[in-house]
């Protein structure tokens, strides 16, 4: 199913809206991103840590994971490895506050669809989601 990011959510029934999960230790992101994602026609759920996400009952139904790189406890890349190890294939978009080409390189792993550098625009977010959910 091709989801057009940016296609307005109001044409879709709530139950069919794909679930995008956000894992970020930063509260600003956890508070702001879900609202924007809902505006873009997704169901959004935010988690403050990798561990919290791993404990999420409905993890399998996650269509895309917006994953912070640097977090206390399990880091973003570690969570990604863990998911691969568990055979769970969720398209991942890394989000990081460390703008560095080397970071992007390091994060190019199977299942990683894009990498967003904070701060990112709505346009960049939609483009990344587009790639992830293609």
């Amino acid at each position, binding site marked *: 199913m091709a989801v057009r990011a940016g296609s307005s959510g*109001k044409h879709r029934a709530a139950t069919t809206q794909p679930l995008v999960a956000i894992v970020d230790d*930063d509260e*600003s*992101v956890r*508070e*702001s*991103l879900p*609202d*924007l994602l809902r*505006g*873009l026609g997704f169901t959004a759920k935010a988690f403050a840590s990798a561990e919290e996400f791993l404990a999420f009952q409905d993890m399998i139904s996650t269509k895309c994971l917006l994953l912070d790189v*640097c977090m206390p406890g399990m880091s973003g890349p570690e969570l990604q490895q863990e998911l691969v190890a568990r055979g769970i294939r969720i398209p991942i978009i890394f*989000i990081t*506050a*460390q*703008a*560095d080409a080397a970071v992007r390189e390091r994060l190019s792993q199977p299942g990683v669809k894009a990498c967003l*550098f*904070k*701060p*990112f*625009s*709505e346009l960049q977010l939609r483009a990344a989601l587009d790639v992830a959910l293609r």
Partner: protein
Amino acid sequence: MSSDAPEIEIPTDVLRKWQRIVDLLANIMSVPSAVVTKMEPPHCIRYEVIVSSKSKGNPFPIDEFFAMDIGTFCETVIKNREPLLVANALEDNQWKLAPEIQLGMISYLGFPVLWPDGRMFGTICVLDDKTNQYSDLYQEVLSHCRDVLQADLQTLTRLGNELDEQVARLRELFARVPEAVAMVDRDFRITRVNPEFTKIFGYTADEAIGRQIKDLITPDDLQAEVESFMHRMVETEDVFTAETVRSHKNGTRVPVSLICVPVPSRGSGNAGYVIHRDITETKRHQEEQRRYHEIQLQLALANRNAAVGQLSASIAHELNQPLTGIMTNCATCSRMLTSDPPNLEGAREAVRRTLRDGERAAKVVERLRALFNREEPAFELVDLNEATREVIGLSLDEIQNGRAIVRTEFAGDLPCVRADRVQLQQVVLNLLRNALDAMNTVEDRPRDLLISTRRQDGDCVQLSVRDSGVGFDPRIAARLFESFFSTKDDGMGIGLSVSRSIIESHQGHLWAVPNVGAGATFLFSVPYRSHAGVQ
């Protein structure tokens, strides 16, 4: 008895005085001859007329010698060490054969003249061609003249001893001075060397004497220099010093400090002394010091660069978090306001979060400012010339890559400043880099960079960096030093503002002026009697 007369030359001024005495004697006593004789050292087998009256009929020329075994009157006085009076030798069996009779002198009055230590010097005597009883008065006069001569000999001996002592002292100094001393003649040949010369350069006195300084111990590349030193020694009387390099017999180069001491030539043919001090140790110490400073600077700059890199990464991280929130919230807010119907409640919530994130960003900046203000400078006495040289030395690659030509004009009399060495070097480095950046696009003229220092009125030292780059608009001169103001596409706009704050923390000023021609000059001045940092 008189086997070893002292070898003291009678100076001409004394001989002139004695001449006056014998002339007076001959005149007063109305005799044809008054003479002073002297035993000839070292064997005393003959004596010599050294002073003879300029009187009519005097048969004794100066410099005439008489053997000590022919029975002259003087010979007798010398041998007996007693005065002698012969009124008429022709009437005296003992003197019938006296050689003086052959010269027409038949009467004699003579006194022995002694050195202060009692050894025989010679005689003073008068002779006559007729019978002469030599009255008591005449005898007293002659005796008195003898005393005058002996007093002169005493003075000469004392002066001679003092001279000997001085010569001995000089000889000892020459032998023991811890510097290599070479005496050279007017052809710049070595005439004497001391033991230290052999120690420093490896040549014995025999090997060195007769050789030219330039051939013996001067490296090929310094021939012109040594020639000029030598000519200067001959042409002037001023002592001069120099620091240069000489070569050891084994080929190694010896850094030396030279003292050239011209000696006014008075017949001896010597042009002067060249004194060499081996400064290998001093040089090594200086080199170590320089390397230490260089490493210290490199470390400090590396640390600083690393710190700046780290800092900017963490600043970026800290600021990017709230910025993400702000951008996301604004995007959300905009969507909510434009949806149909507008979601005002949601929009208000998004704005509230935007404000909160904005405050959070402001707090990051505030923390940052506190961090920057904390660093305390470490003050020491800094030679700005030396510190600048080090910065240039470290920047050679950048200078070369920028195809720039760096010239320096350092004041020789620059006093040290109390300053944080590395901070000042940071400023010089910033100005140097700025200048290189300003000349980066210059293709139609040489990329000249002049770094100069000078002492300024008001107890300040000044450093200026003059480039031939793109220059700046005078209208923005004041803004150049503002934080985050940059005329460069990739500039951060912190170099000059940091530099200015460093200079101001040293109670100094940093400013810029456009050149009359191309480019700009950046200058700073700092007081050298500042007690900055001592508060």
